[in-house]
């Protein structure tokens, strides 16, 4: 039986990598991936606790998070394409104006 804190530590590491990547990276697609990483770190925590307490609600939450993440990916990618088309760049530092 793997103790719960193993999962939690792994989850924390993944989440921190996600945050760090989000803050450091300039490429918008990489930032997008780091968001996915953070979401999945949280998913891992949910599943771990669900298993630990023998409660199914944690797993149900995970499904919700996945659905939201999928929706977000669809919308986000569309936005990214739109940004690239208009500005010819994916560097977030040069995308700091609401309008052109």
């Amino acid at each position, binding site marked *: 039986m793997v103790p719960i804190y193993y999962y939690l530590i792994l989850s924390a590491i993944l989440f921190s990598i996600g*945050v760090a990547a*989000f*803050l450091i990276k*300039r490429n918008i697609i990489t*930032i997008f991936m780091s968001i996915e990483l953070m979401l999945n770190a949280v998913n891992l925590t949910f599943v771990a606790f669900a298993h630990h307490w023998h409660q199914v609600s944690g797993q149900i939450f995970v499904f919700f998070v996945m659905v939201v993440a999928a929706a977000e990916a669809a919308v986000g990618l569309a936005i990214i394409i739109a940004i690239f088309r208009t500005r010819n760049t994916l560097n*977030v*530092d040069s*995308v*700091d*104006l*609401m309008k052109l």
Partner: protein
Amino acid sequence: MTGSLNLWLIPLVPFAGFLVNGLVGRKLPKVLVTAIALICTLIPFLQVAKIWFQFSSITTPYIEHLGTWIWSGAFHADFDLQLDQLTMVMLLVVTGVGFLIHIYSVGYMAHEEGYWRFFAYLNLFMFFMLTLVLSENFLLMFVGWEGVGLASYLLIGFYILKDSAVRAGIKAFVVNRIGDFGFLIALFLLIAHFGTLSYHEVFAQIAQHPEWQGGVLTAIALFLVLGATGKSAQIPLYVWLPDAMEGPTPVSALIHAATMVTAGVYMVSRTHIIFDRSPFALSTVAIIGAATCFFAATMGLLQTDIKRVLAYSTVSQLGYMFLACGVAAYSSAIFHLVTHAFFKALLFLAAGSVIHSIGGEQDMRVMGGLRKKIPVTFWTMTAAVFSICGFPPFAGFFSKDGILYQAFISPNGGKILWFFGWVTAGLTSFYMFRLWYLTFLGESRAESHELAEHGAPVHARADSKLAVEDEHPHSVHESPWVMLGPLVILAILATIGGFIGVPAAMGGHDEIGHFLDPVLGTGNHPPGGENSGLELALSASAVLIGLVGLLVVHILYKVKPELPGKLATQFHGLYNLVVNKYWVDQIYGAVIVTPLLLFSRYILKALIDRGIIDGAGFAAGATAQGFGAIVQRVQSGNIRSYAGWLAVGAAVLLIAVYFGFTAHF
């Protein structure tokens, strides 16, 4: 009485006319504008006439509840209209004279710019005036009171391109505001003291407490008087009325002679139950009235503008009405109000007809000899002159003598009041016949344009009828029948109108006095009997002094035309005093207006408004701007910096929860 009288129709129909003409009148053809304005004045008149014919079957006061306006705790003010004898008289005068003047205006204003605007304003005035007389509580009366002031302002300043007209409008409005302030204070006192503004509730409370004398009732009455002096152009607030002659002449006839300016008299009569409890307020009214009627008459003596003579005459006649109110002869005041509405409206309309016929000139010194050229105007004007001078059997004779007699028999210095009124009768006769002689008799002075009576240069007035003047400068022509018709009707009324109130001493029944008894109380018209000899003697003396006035005019302006100039040089000081109207306008200007303007400009505007209020605003703005300049750096638009702040915030929250706040949960 079965069914409703539909009193609401009376004010609201003119209002509908105002809305239509005011909103789309610019685009409508002239005929349609005329039709709307006239029909919207005719309908109320017919409605009033209908009510008049069934009046004996109405239980008065008849109150029509239209809705609740303000409801706050125990206090409530309603849209209630009331019909009683006093209202009936006022309604007949306002709608009757108002309709005639509307007809007249069709001819008089035919060539003016802004024809639709004029009729829209006139209808608006009718709406507010009818609201004023129909209201059942002080608040609704105040609505009408303010509204007629507004309509008056709009109509005085009708010639919006003429600077003096605009200024006169503003002056009228501002001076009236002073009076309205008094009215408002009176309303607040009424609410504080009685908890209601409804006439019958206030009067019922007073009736239940016979011990209430003076005190707060005096205060209320005096503030009401202040309001009345503003609206009815009494000392000290009369100064706006002569200037109001800048408006078109039908306006002067309707608003500044027949109806609006009598609102103060109506108000004092309506609230006479309050005044009856305050002898001090009553004597104030009487003194104001006597002083106004005398001084205004002297100011009118030497005016050269035909309309200004009539303006001072109006102030003077209103003084008579106030005098009557002040000696608690309310029905005499209302009687004089009615006859005055007839003859003064007629005087103004006839003067307008004169002005119209000679192409816009208002200076009597260049008139003269118009009797043959405009005979209808001349004869109607003559009826009005005889009426205002109080020669029997014209209307003014009965009403004015009623007032003088009542003043004479009243206690507390009534004889002095009577004396001023009596002298004023002579002065009235003088200035009216002077106007009559200068305008209609003698030779025409229009061609020669020589220096007029006192050697003063003839100043061509910036006249109100610019359009007409240039087309035919000197061809004198009688006015069209649309103008003469109302003149003739009013002339008949000014001649025989007095027979509604022939006093008992002259073998009459004082019908109007008895008619008004249910509202104004029975004690205010003299019985016949032992005093009738005195009353007849007083009447005779008043007619006599009127004849003296006529005689003096005849000598000065007919027999020895060189005499006025000599007298003017001989009594130089007095002459200047009167010609300059006692410098009242100048004194007001120096004592009140100039300090007020300086105070406003330098203290209120420069120091308080610019310095403190604007300063505080600017300081607050600058502070916010400075703070914003610092904080705006955070909102860079850079996504990674936002994310950084988010991460820092989350970290701080985590640390706080972990170390600090766990204890509280």
